[in-house]
């Protein structure tokens, strides 16, 4: 298993780590071997047969996924014999595949389409009726199954069995009538069931949520992080016309492998909510940002003698929290809290903390709010409402004479600023295991919306003309890293698309 | 007083109704004739045979937005079309379009025509300049150069007429022809030069270089629209009318017919007018006919033709005619 072995791929000698299979080893030689049933995180099924390669010295073609490299092995991924076999497999896969591409959501990111173009002959010689199988089969409220499109690679079967631990899907019938079935009442129950949609190399499994919303080629994709819990699963958000349409996991071996939970995947409806607040409200009336900031400034200055209560949200990025910290330092505010929504967790990915950045808020000096609120009366409250979950109790709200709120929806307050969601801004969060990860801006919900960091910085600048706020999230992070030892040495580029461990916090890996 | 009022009425009728009327009919005729020559039918929707088309055009011109671009010299820009039209109208005043019906029966009539029509170029040149547009300016410059070049040939081509007739009064010229036959038979080459030069003077094809759509995007009137454009347009047609009238008066016997003596009195005057208009119509038709037949000259060709061919040729004709007249006088 260990050490490197030398193999020859299509005549090119490369040294690859031992124990690799031929698909992975071929990548070292810059060759890609097509595959449907093979998935690096699932067991090998070897049933699609598209990865056939010719190994020197072996009579029959071998499947690359089930063959491991040995010292001195030489194999061909692209010679005449392999190409012909591949073309044959493609043709056979397609003879009973329906001409569904026009209505199939997978079109555009379909392995069958890609390989048909790359390795297929372009024509069919099949002159008979295609096999009829059940279409549009409901597998519960999240997944829709189309048996005609299925190429029986069994990735879904293996995922639910091996990863999710809920072996719910099996095969029924045999031969060309073979089809997938869900055991029991035919509905999937796994909280990770939607991963089978990503796994499905064709359009047999589609998401009821995303079904027919958009063709993938119209969509804009953003690599960011899921914020439904502290796990911080890496995701790719698909959007069209500044509305989020779907979220799919993005492979990160240190966080979520290739998976994410269904809850996180569907946790974006509040982003698209058309009733969201898009302009600040001053005393219940819409107002320009300048006016709202001026009003907020007046409230904060007026409340200096009577004390100010600051409640941050664990949905804020570190940069926003830092901008808030700078403002509070300037105002001399002592009582800094944040509210942490909690819920159920599991062993696989779901974390009990239902917010992305509780750890970051703690690192930036905010205290987790206790059940009992200080009985003190305050002159003003500066409160970032969480997107969902725990909210400030009514009694605590009433304790302040004046209230400055940041909220997704309009709320009763002296000044109410609109919140932006995680997909509308750049920033960093500290996920479970003190892992610093980047959020990336993918959409602009409304051009009028200003991010919280800018609002805080403008508020700060209105109080103190010498305040020079950073422009970009990267600059804000640099400022934060210079100020806090826990973030020492962190830069935007160093975090990278997959995140990094915050070593300085001394948390266990 | 009656004389003044009568003249004023005459002027108003001729300049306010007859000439614009001819222009309007010319617009229609130009479009219909050109259409026929190109196997089309032309405007035939408004009124019988499309005869009301000029009215529709006029209405359109009147109701179109009067755009004055921001970058123009406003005063000159507005003045230019007027300066173009007025000389055209004035030049017609000495033309005897019927027996005894010249507005101004002056004894230097033909010189007056040349003098006034030369002013018309100012309208074009100023319009081109005031438009503050390089195409328009080029159009204006071309127009002035073209005028100067062909004014010479035009003037010189008429000199033999005076030599022969011995009078500058238009009526006298017409009368001479009644007695001695049409001058065109005596002075055919001079008439040809006159014709070519008048085409050049009126900026008509094949010499419409000042407006040359394909090169100059309509030249001096690129920036013009609405009634100001209509005035330029009208000026051109009235110039054509004047040129045709001159051609008739100087070379084709004016309002008289050979071998026929018109009766005296009102009927005679009316008939003579009709004869004149019939002759003039032929020349107007010729304008259109030539326009839709010949392609435009290149500028250097135009200059070459004017200076190197027409000018020497007209000089030669003067010399020859002078010789002929001297011979005639001697023989007499």
């Amino acid at each position, binding site marked *: 298993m260990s050490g490197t072995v030398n193999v020859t791929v299509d005549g090119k000698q490369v040294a690859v780590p031992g124990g690799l299979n031929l698909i992975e080893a071929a990548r070292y030689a810059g060759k890609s071997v097509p595959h449907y049933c093979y998935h690096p995180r699932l067991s*090998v*099924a*070897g*049933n*699609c*047969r*598209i990865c*056939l390669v010719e190994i020197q010295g072996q009579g*029959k*073609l071998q*499947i690359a996924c*089930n063959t491991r490299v040995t010292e001195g092995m030489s194999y061909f991924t692209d010679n005449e014999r392999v190409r*012909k*076999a591949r*073309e*044959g*497999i493609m*043709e*056979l*896969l397609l*003879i*009973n595949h329906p001409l569904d591409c026009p209505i199939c959501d997978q079109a555009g990111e379909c392995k069958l389409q890609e390989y048909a173009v790359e390795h297929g002959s372009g024509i069919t*010689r*099949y*002159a*008979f009726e295609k*096999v009829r199988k059940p279409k549009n089969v409901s597998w519960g409220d999240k997944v829709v199954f189309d048996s005609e499109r299925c*190429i*029986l690679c069994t990735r879904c079967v293996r995922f639910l069995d091996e990863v999710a631990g809920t072996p719910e899907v*099996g*095969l029924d*019938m*045999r*031969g*060309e*009538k*073979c089809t997938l079935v869900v055991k029991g009442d035919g509905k999937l129950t796994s909280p990770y069931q939607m991963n089978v949609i990503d796994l499905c190399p064709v359009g047999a499994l589609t998401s009821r949520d995303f079904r027919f919303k958009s063709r993938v080629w119209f969509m804009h994709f953003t690599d960011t992080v899921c914020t439904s819990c502290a796990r911080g699963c890496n995701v790719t958000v698909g959007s069209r016309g500044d509305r989020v349409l779907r979220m799919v996991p993005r492979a990160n071996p240190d966080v979520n492998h290739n998976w994410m939970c269904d809850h996180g995947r569907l946790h974006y409806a509040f982003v698209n909510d058309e009733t969201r607040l898009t302009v600040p409200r001053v005393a219940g009336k819409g107002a320009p940002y300048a006016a709202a900031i001026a009003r907020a400034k007046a409230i904060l200055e007026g409340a200096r003698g009577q004390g100010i209560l600051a409640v941050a949200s664990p949905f804020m990025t570190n940069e926003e929290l830092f901008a808030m910290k700078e403002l509070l330092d300037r105002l001399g505010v002592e009582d800094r809290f944040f509210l942490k929504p909690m819920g159920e967790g599991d062993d696989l990915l779901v974390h009990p903390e239902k917010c992305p950045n509780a750890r970051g808020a703690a690192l930036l000096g905010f205290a987790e709010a206790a059940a009992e609120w200080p009985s003190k009366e305050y002159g003003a409250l500066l409160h970032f409402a969480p997107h969902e979950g725990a909210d400030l109790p009514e009694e605590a709200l009433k304790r302040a004479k004046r209230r400055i709120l940041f909220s997704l929806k309009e709320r009763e307050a002296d000044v109410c600023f609109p919140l932006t969601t995680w997909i509308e801004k750049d920033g960093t969060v500290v996920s479970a295991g003190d892992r610093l990860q980047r959020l990336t801006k993918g959409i602009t919900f409304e051009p009028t919306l200003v991010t919280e960091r800018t609002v805080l910085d403008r508020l700060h600048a209105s109080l103190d003309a010498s305040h020079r706020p950073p422009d970009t999230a990267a600059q804000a992070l640099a400022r934060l890293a210079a100020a806090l030892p826990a973030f020492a040495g962190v830069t935007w580029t160093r975090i990278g698309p997959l995140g990094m461990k915050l070593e300085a916090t001394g948390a266990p890996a | 007083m009656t004389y003044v009022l009568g003249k004023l009425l005459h002027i108003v009728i001729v300049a306010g109704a007859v000439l614009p009327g001819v222009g309007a009919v010319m617009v229609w005729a130009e479009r219909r004739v050109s259409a026929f020559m190109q196997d089309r039918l032309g405007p035939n929707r408004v009124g019988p045979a499309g005869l009301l088309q000029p009215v529709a055009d006029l209405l359109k011109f009147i109701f179109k937005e009067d755009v004055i671009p921001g970058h123009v010299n406003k005063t000159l820009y507005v003045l230019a079309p007027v300066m173009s039209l007025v000389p055209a109208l004035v030049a017609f005043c000495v033309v005897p379009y019927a027996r005894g019906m010249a507005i101004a029966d002056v004894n230097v009539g033909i010189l007056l025509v040349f003098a006034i029509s030369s002013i018309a170029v100012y309208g074009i040149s100023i319009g081109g300049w005031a438009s503050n547009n390089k195409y328009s300016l080029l159009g204006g410059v071309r127009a002035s150069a073209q005028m100067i070049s062909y004014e010479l040939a035009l003037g010189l081509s008429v000199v033999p007429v005076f030599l022969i007739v011995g009078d500058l009064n238009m009526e006298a010229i017409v009368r001479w022809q009644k007695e001695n036959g049409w001058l065109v038979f005596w002075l055919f080459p001079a008439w040809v030069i006159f014709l070519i030069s008048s085409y050049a003077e009126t900026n008509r094809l094949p010499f419409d270089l000042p407006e040359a759509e394909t090169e100059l995007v309509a030249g001096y009137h690129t920036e013009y629209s609405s009634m100001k454009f209509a005035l330029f347009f009208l000026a051109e047609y009235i110039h054509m009318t004047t040129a045709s009238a001159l051609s008739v008066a100087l070379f084709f016997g004016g309002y008289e017919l050979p071998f026929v003596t018109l009766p005296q009195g009102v009927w005679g005057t009316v008939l003579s007018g009709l004869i004149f208009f019939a002759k003039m119509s032929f020349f107007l038709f010729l304008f259109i006919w030539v326009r839709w037949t010949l392609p435009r000259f290149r500028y250097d060709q135009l200059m070459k033709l004017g200076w190197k061919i027409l000018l020497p040729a007209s000089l030669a004709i003067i010399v020859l005619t002078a010789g002929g007249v001297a011979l005639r006088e001697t023989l007499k």
Partner: protein
Amino acid sequence: MIRETRVMLEHAGDPAQKTLAGYRKHGGYQALAKALREMKPEEVTEEVLKSGLRGRGGAGFPTGRKWKFVPKTNKKKYIAVNADESEPGTCKDRQIMENDPHQLIEGTLLAAYAIGAETCYIYVRGEYPHSIRALEDALDEARGAGLVGRDIMGSGFSCDIWVHPGAGAYICGEETALLTSLEGNRGYPRLRPPFPAVEGLWKSPTVVNNVETLSCVTHILRRGASWFSSLGCEGSTGTRLFCISGHVRNPGVYELECGKFTLRELLMELGGGTPSGRPIKGVLPGGSSMPVLTAAELDVRFDLDSIAKAGSSLGSGAIMVFDDSVSAVDVALNISQFYSHESCGQCTPCREGSDWVRLMLDAVRRREAGTKDVALLLDVLDRIEGNTICALAEAFCWPVRSFVKKFGAEFEAHLKERASA
């Protein structure tokens, strides 16, 4: 005159042979007793290797060598007896199971002793209720006599044998599919490597042997390897059961020594020629999954290697004969119908291809195809053959291809009739 050499079926006619007492009368369980008492497991394997015994399931792999692949680990090991006799035309194993089950049990125990297995499964075809009952009865008796179970014959060797009825899938006769089925899963063939001898049932080393093979083991151990190898010929030692069916006067199961006669002699003398007297048109010498031999090719010596040289195989020993009243197109279609029905659907070429081949042959039979389609058929067979997990794809590619190639003229003539009809 060809004569049968009855070893396994020597006492098959005797109903008493089914009982333990009857079996013991003819030397039953002596070989087991001898092996357990006097021989080390490796010696048993050596004896089998020396005998030249080759698997009787179809592939003809030397049994001793298979046993030797089993790694010497402390892991649990298994014997799986392949009694899923579902190859069309094959009916030899049931003769053993129903008439002389104890020789199979004894052979199984010997094999288990040789590789150190303590659990054996006999996977019997579900459509063989009589075999299942006979085996169950025999096992009960043997278990009662202390021949199966804990501490067999006081030797300290324990081994239990279980009968496992199949559920009616042809593919479960494939050794890895049989194992998957035994584990309680869909009968899907497994990827190789790892081979069952290394990682079989529940990831443990497992030897899968045919009923007839294990029955032979009993006789090898009883009478010695040299006696066994003296029978038959080089490469095909011992006796073999052959099931002759189709257009022959005397169909049935025959126990024969290989290499002593030609196929034609076998069919004409033992089989008695065709009942109608019409000439033989073709023979499938090893069940429906082997290439056909035409009448002209029948003069081949009847043993594993000679038949292989002739381009076919003895397979499971099912010799199917058809005379010239049979259409080659019909046979090819019939074979493809069977395999398209039995394809498990796991891997692409066989799942999709078997049905396509069936449809194309059906089109040929209905004269809706052209000669070009026959070329297409051969090309599709090319794309399927050798690209699958198990040999089921070959099992229909080989016979179909052989029919198209060897009876090409007939295919063409059949298609031409369309034009004239």
